[in-house]
C-alpha cells in the first residue's frame, strides 16, 4: 500500500506540473461555460434536482474531457518510457494500475463537482424554477457521475496498456470511441439484424449495463439505482485487473 501511496503522489505531482495541466483546468472552466449555453435550450425541461444536474450536460461533456485527458496522461508513461521511473520495487506494476485508478477518480470527483457547482449557480442566476435540493441526492449523483467518468478513463487506459504500439494515439482513439458511445450505437444497430433471442439479449441484457446507457440515464435525470454502483465498480475492478495483468509481463520501454 505504501508503494501505491507513493505512486499516487508521484502521478499527482506530474499531473499538477505537466504543461497540459493548465490547459486541462482551462478546458474544464470553458466546459462550465458551455453548461450555461446548454441551459438556454433545456432549462425549462428540468423538473427535478437530478434533471437539473443531468440536463446541463455535465456528465455528457465532462466525461469526454476527463477520459480524453487522463487516458493521454497515463499513456505518456509508455510513450516516453517514464513508467520505468515509477518502478521502485516489488509490486510496482500493480501499484501503477491502482495509482491510475485513484488519480483518475480524484480528477473525476473534482471535475464533476466543478460542473455541479457551475450548474447550480447558473440555474439560480437564470431564474430556473425552484427544485427540491437534496444533499443525499447530490452526493449520490456526484459519486455515480464521478465513477462513470473514472470508468471511461480507466477502460481507455486499459486499452492503451494492452495495445503494444502508439500509446498516445491509442489512448485518444479509445477514449473518443468510448465516450462518444459509438460502440453502443453500433451494437444497438447491429442487434436489429440479429436473430430474435440474441437481439433481445443484447438490447435488454447487455446495452442497459454499458457505460453509455448509464451516461444517458444520468443525462435524463433518471433515478439513481443501486445496481449502477455495482455495475461501475465491476467495470473498474475488471479494468484494473486487466491493466495489472497486461503490465505484469510487459516490456517497459520508450515507444
Amino acid at each position, binding site marked *: 500500500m*505504501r*508503494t501505491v501511496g*507513493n*505512486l499516487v*503522489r*508521484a502521478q499527482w*505531482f*506530474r499531473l499538477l*506540473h*505537466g*504543461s*497540459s495541466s493548465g490547459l486541462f483546468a482551462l478546458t474544464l472552466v470553458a466546459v462550465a461555460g458551455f453548461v450555461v449555453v446548454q441551459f438556454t435550450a433545456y432549462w425549462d425541461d428540468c423538473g427535478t434536482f437530478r434533471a437539473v444536474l443531468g440536463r446541463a450536460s455535465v456528465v455528457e461533456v465532462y466525461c469526454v474531457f476527463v477520459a480524453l485527458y487522463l487516458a493521454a496522461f497515463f499513456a*505518456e508513461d509508455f510513450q*516516453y*518510457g*517514464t*513508467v*520505468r*521511473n*515509477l*518502478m*521502485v*520495487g*516489488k509490486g*510496482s*506494476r500493480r501499484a501503477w494500475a491502482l495509482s491510475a485508478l485513484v488519480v483518475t477518480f480524484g480528477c473525476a470527483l473534482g471535475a464533476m463537482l466543478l460542473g455541479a457547482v457551475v450548474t447550480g449557480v447558473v440555474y439560480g442566476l437564470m431564474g430556473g424554477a425552484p427544485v427540491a435540493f437534496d444533499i443525499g441526492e447530490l452526493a449520490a449523483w456526484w459519486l455515480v457521475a464521478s465513477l462513470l467518468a473514472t470508468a471511461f478513463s480507466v477502460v481507455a487506459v486499459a486499452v492503451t496498456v494492452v495495445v503494444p504500439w502508439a500509446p498516445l494515439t491509442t489512448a485518444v482513439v479509445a477514449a473518443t470511441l468510448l465516450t462518444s458511445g459509438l460502440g453502443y450505437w453500433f451494437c444497438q444497430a447491429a442487434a436489429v439484424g440479429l436473430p430474435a433471442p440474441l437481439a433481445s439479449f443484447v438490447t435488454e441484457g447487455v446495452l442497459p449495463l454499458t457505460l453509455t446507457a448509464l451516461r444517458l440515464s444520468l443525462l435524463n435525470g433518471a433515478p439513481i439505482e443501486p445496481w449502477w454502483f455495482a455495475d461501475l465498480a465491476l467495470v473498474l475492478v475488471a479494468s484494473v485487473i486487466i491493466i495489472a495483468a497486461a503490465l*505484469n*509481463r510487459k*516490456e*517497459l*520501454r*520508450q515507444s
Partner: protein
Amino acid sequence: MDALRCTDLTRAFRGKRAVDAVSLALQPGDIYGLVGRNGAGKSTLLKMIAGYLAPTAGTVEVCGEALGPCQTSSRIGCLIEHPAVNPALTGVQNVTVRAIAQGLPDPKRAATEMVEAVGLGEAGRDRAKGYSLGMKQRLGLALALVGRPDVLLLDEPFNGLDPEGVRLVRRLLTSAAEERGTAIVISSHVLDQLERTVTRYGVIRAGRLVAEMTAAEVEEACADYLCVETADAPRALTVLEQACPEACFTVMPDDAIRVTGAVEAEKVGRLLLEAGVPVSGLYVHARDIEDYFVELMGGTGAVRGTRGGENRG
C-alpha cells in the same frame, strides 16, 4: 554478500536466444564493464536485471534478495537505452517524480541535489523538451542515481556527453563505487572511457558471456612490447637473456621474439648486431584495448541481426 548475482539468465525472442545462460556476480564497489558488439545482448541482459523485461530462464539477486521475473528493486538505479524523460516537465521535476515514487523523505531536495551533481545546474529548471542529447543523458544519470541505489545499470552512459561531462560522470561513478560501495555495470562501446573507469570486464558475444577479466589483466594483455624478427631465434634469445636479465622474453609461433620489461630497442639492436644475429625486423608493438576487445568479441565481422531490425546492445 554479492551486490548483484545473475544465474543462467536467458532471454529468447521467437526461439532465438538474445541472452544465453549468462551468470555474473558483482561485489559492492565493483565497476563492471560489459563489452560486446551491437546486438550481442548487452541491453537485453541489463533490462532483465532491471526488471523491465521478463527472462525466459534464470534468476537475479540484488543484495541477497531474489527478484521475480519483471520485478524491479528499489536498490537498483538504471539508465538503459534512452533516458526516460518526460519533456513536459523540468529536469528537477522529472527527478522529483522518481524521488516521490521511491518514498524519499525530501524528494524535491534530493532531486535538486542530484540534478546539480550531474552538472545540469540552472538548466535543471528548464523543461526537458529543450534539452540536447547530452543534457538528457545527464538527466537520465540523475534519475538513475537518485535514492543512492546499491546497484547501478548503465547502458552507454557516455553517449552524447561533452568531455567535461564525461569526466564528471566518471568521477561520479568512481566516487559512488568507492565511497558508498555501489556496484556498477556499464555497457559501453567507448572503450577508452571504460578503461579509465572499470575494475572488471565481461565480454558478451552472441548472447553468451565468453570472457571475464580484471582491469589489471586487460592492462597486462594490452601492454606495449618490443618485437624482434629474426631467422635465428634460439641464438638471439640466448644473447638477449644473458645481456638483459631484467626483461621477459617470449618466442612467438612465427619465431619472432616478444620482449617486455625495461629494455630499449636501441640496446637490443646493438646487442644482436654485435653478436652477428641476423635481424629482419625490430619494432615496438602497440596493442590497444580496442584491438584486444575486437578480437575477443569475434573479430570485425558483420553485426549480428536482431528482432525487428533493431540494433540491441
